[in-house]
């Protein structure tokens, strides 16, 4: 099982933004209105709010993270009942994660990111979503 760093560090975007395909904004439904959050999704730190955010991008809930040709998947992580992280599946079947304000990495499985240094507090994958892979 391996993880590969694929970018320089950046404070300009975070994991949720990266999973959503946005490297220009920091996505988070904070109560202070600092982070970006889709208007049609609840601005609260809950799994439902995160799922709603990805629904606005055309994703739908699905079972598991196995590679399905033609589909792009994302996964939401949770620790102690709160969302912590999101990752996106690449066409290769590997996963890409932006680690907070740090670097992007690629990892073999959704679970593998937790083994990366300083990432143990991501908890575990709790919800997969998929959409037709953009061409």
């Amino acid at each position, binding site marked *: 099982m391996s993880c590969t760093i694929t970018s320089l560090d950046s*404070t*300009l*975007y*975070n*994991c*949720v*933004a990266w999973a959503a395909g946005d490297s*220009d*904004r*920091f*996505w*988070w439904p*904070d*109560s*202070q*209105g*600092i*982070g*970006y*959050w889709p208007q049609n999704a609840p601005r609260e*730190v809950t799994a439902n709010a995160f799922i709603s955010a990805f629904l606005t991008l055309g994703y739908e809930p699905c079972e598991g993270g196995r590679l399905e040709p033609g589909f792009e998947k994302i996964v939401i992580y949770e620790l102690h009942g*709160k969302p*912590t*992280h999101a990752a996106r599946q690449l066409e290769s079947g590997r996963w890409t994660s*932006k*680690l*907070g*304000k*740090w670097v992007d990495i690629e990892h073999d499985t959704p679970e593998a990111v937790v083994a990366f240094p*300083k*990432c143990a*507090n991501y908890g575990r994958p709790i919800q997969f979503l998929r959409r037709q892979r953009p061409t």
Partner: protein
Amino acid sequence: MTPTATKTPPITYARRGRLIGCRGWCNPQDKKRHKSLKMPRRSVMSGMGVAGTAAPLVDEPESKLFSSLVRQWKDETLTLSSIEEIALHPAYQRIIGMGPAVVPWILRELEAEPDQWFWALRALTGEDPVDPGARGRIAEMSRSWLSWARHRGIRW
């Protein structure tokens, strides 16, 4: 809202003498009057710190303590995406607890590397010059705060 659109009077803090001498954080008119005054050293009470942290707790010059807390905060929030967790980190909260005098230092940090300083700036100044449409755009939000500070005559 542009920084000039705010109705809050500029830097009332300095008039109360709380920020005098802190890297130009004062009204331009007050500059001459306060020129001879220096930022006092402040003792940080033992026991206010966070258990297990590396930040010094007592009798540390403010700027050194600030730098130490910034390093700790950046290191320990590196992989976090949660703005609440980033802002509620003990080192970040201690920085806010240092009061409005640290605003110029935060602006310097923000200029050097845009980062999640917005929560602290809002808490310390009671203002928010960021356009709602710029939410999440860290570089643009940083520019808004730096522009706001320039309009207020704050130097860093």
